[in-house]
């Protein structure tokens, strides 16, 4: 299959990880594939395969933030959840700090979960409405045996202060808080077990602009204070640009481009990245003048177009784009893209 990394490419990838990073990657995602079976069961209903993730590989260095952007249905959320083994993959590997997660049994995996956490998009459904903030924040510490008794409350109080909530928040319930404050509770919960790696799945998408900026700043500050690595999933390119070191762009289950944030936004290499950037409305006088407007909708991942999945919407598509998957190109150590151009 064209587009899949050969063994040599794979060893180059490993070499690369060694070269450009002082330490080894905290997270390595290797040729991840996820198929969902949809439909079927009933009379005459045919089961179909939805390719949510197709040959996804990347790594995240300690202390690094990798932004992951793409439109709805491209597989970003699935990817975040597979990394934490909240759903199982079809094939591929996820290596966290040298350990292949898919080899672990349930008990070993549970032990590792304390080092990898997730912050969810919806601050309303992701908190237990019957738990006080203290109960929410201390549950993980108790489960992982990080603290007990009096110390639990002290550490919860520290965390609450760290995420910018008032001290009296500990005894209150989620419904007493605004969306932004609830998201801070979700962040405190994720950080309570002292993780090294956090998947942030659209953490600010449900928030108003003025509050969104507060939470982004908080995530930036906590990252440097606690030495965290983030996989920061978002559909909002402006937010991703502000928080990320490197950015990966997904389209229909594939990563079509990865690059350092400055390079990717200044000189995007993949036509989809270019279109995505140019489609963002800018709050400036006159708005934007030169825009690439893509035609049509994102095709269904159940029956993706042959060859390059983007070719039916690509302004620069060539006849051969429909025939074969474009090669994976690595113009330099930090950059990868899949396009014949």
């Amino acid at each position: 299959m064209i587009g899949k990394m050969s063994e040599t490419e794979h060893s180059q990838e490993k070499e690369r990880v060694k070269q450009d990073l002082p330490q080894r990657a905290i997270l390595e995602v290797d040729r991840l594939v996820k198929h969902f079976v949809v439909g079927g069961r009933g009379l005459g209903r045919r089961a179909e395969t939805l390719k949510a993730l197709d040959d996804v590989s990347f790594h995240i260095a300690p202390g690094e933030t990798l932004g992951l952007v793409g439109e709805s249905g491209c597989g970003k959320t699935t990817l975040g959840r597979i990394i934490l083994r909240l759903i199982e993959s079809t094939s591929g590997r996820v290596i966290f700090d040298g350990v292949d997660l898919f080899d672990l049994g349930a008990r070993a995996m549970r032990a590792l979960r304390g080092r990898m956490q997730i912050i969810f998009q919806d601050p309303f459904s992701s908190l237990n409405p019957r738990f006080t903030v203290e109960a929410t924040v201390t549950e993980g510490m108790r489960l992982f045996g990080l603290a007990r008794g009096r110390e639990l409350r002290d550490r919860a109080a520290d965390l609450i202060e760290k995420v910018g909530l008032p001290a009296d928040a500990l005894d209150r319930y989620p419904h007493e808080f605004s969306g932004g404050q609830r998201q801070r509770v979700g962040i405190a919960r994720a950080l309570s077990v002292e993780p090294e790696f956090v998947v942030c799945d659209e953490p600010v998408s449900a928030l108003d602009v003025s509050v969104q900026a507060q939470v982004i700043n908080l995530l930036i500050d906590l990252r440097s204070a606690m030495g965290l690595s983030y996989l920061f999933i978002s559909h909002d390119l402006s937010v991703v640009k502000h928080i990320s070191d490197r950015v990966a762009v997904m389209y229909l289950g594939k990563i079509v481009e990865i690059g350092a944030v400055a390079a990717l936004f200044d000189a995007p290499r993949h036509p989809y990245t270019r279109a995505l950037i140019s489609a963002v409305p800018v709050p400036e006088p006159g708005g934007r003048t030169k825009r690439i407007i893509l035609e049509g909708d994102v095709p269904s991942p159940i029956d993706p177009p042959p060859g390059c999945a983007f070719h039916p919407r690509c302004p620069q598509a060539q006849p051969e784009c429909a025939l074969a998957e474009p090669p994976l190109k690595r113009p330099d150590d930090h950059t990868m893209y899949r396009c014949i151009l």
Partner: protein
Amino acid sequence: MSTESDRKAQPLLEVRGLKTVFGPPEAGAAAVDGVSLAIGRAEALGLVGESGSGKSVTALSILRLVADPPGKIVDGEIFFKGRDLLRLEADAMRAVRGNEIALILQEPATALNPVMTVGSQIAEALRLHEKLNRRDANRRAVEFLDRVGIPSAEKTARSWPHQLSGGMIQRAMIAMALSCGPDLLIADEPTSALDVTIQAQILDLLHRLRREEAMSLLLISHDLGVVAGICDRVAVMYAGEIVEEAEKDRLFERPGHPYTAALLRSTPTLRGTPTLRGTPTLRGTPQRLRPIPGQVPSPSAHGAACRFRGRCAKAQPVCGEDKPPLDELDPGHRVACFFPERKV
């Protein structure tokens, strides 16, 4: 008011002192509190604000679609082509809706009737409003679907809503809104549920159609960027009030209200390049944003005072004692602040 002088002699729509209250009469909270705005013929006004600022309730109030109870329009006038909509009989108001003022909403998935084909829903509107027969109405429905850029319009007209993507449904909604040739289109967050590449398509479409039809547009959005693309003027709402109104370019270049300025500063944009930080070249520099501290006050906390004062860096004692009027800073630029931002 002097602002009216340089506007087109008679605005198409003029809202004066609109107040819409939710909840019991004695303890109700004003979601919209004394809003005045005007839209000229063929003009596009953007109405921006965060959730709960009263943008949508303003739109629904104009069409008298606020559910009563719990909502009630308790004060104000809404002049549309010289008539006060708030004084119209129910029948006359029904004739205004759809025919003269059309509305498109945010949630494309719930906007269409799931058990009617797309074409028949548009045709239904045409038969009701334009008194067309079934055949002509169906034919016109296909024409409109074609005009809003729906590929193979005839086939789409026979499709069910669930067979269409969000972007296609929003196009169909726009086709339906345009089918009766309204003078004013109110679009309430028309692209908020859509992906960014689809949003670009829909905004482009609205922009084109507005010009072709010489139609007025009230575009409601929380996204300053969306409004920047297609509006002539922009009004900013905060906690139920309009705090600033200006020509679009003026507003983005020289916002007068501290809230508008802070909102623009706190919005992450693609402008500017994050610089690569020494070695290793891999690292970007996370750019801290400049958020607005605190939160929008709850309606019960209002009083005769500036509602932004608790979050405002420039607040003075007077801001808590008196309500700043929406005064002209310069011709066509109104700001409700005792200490408006001056030229930098």
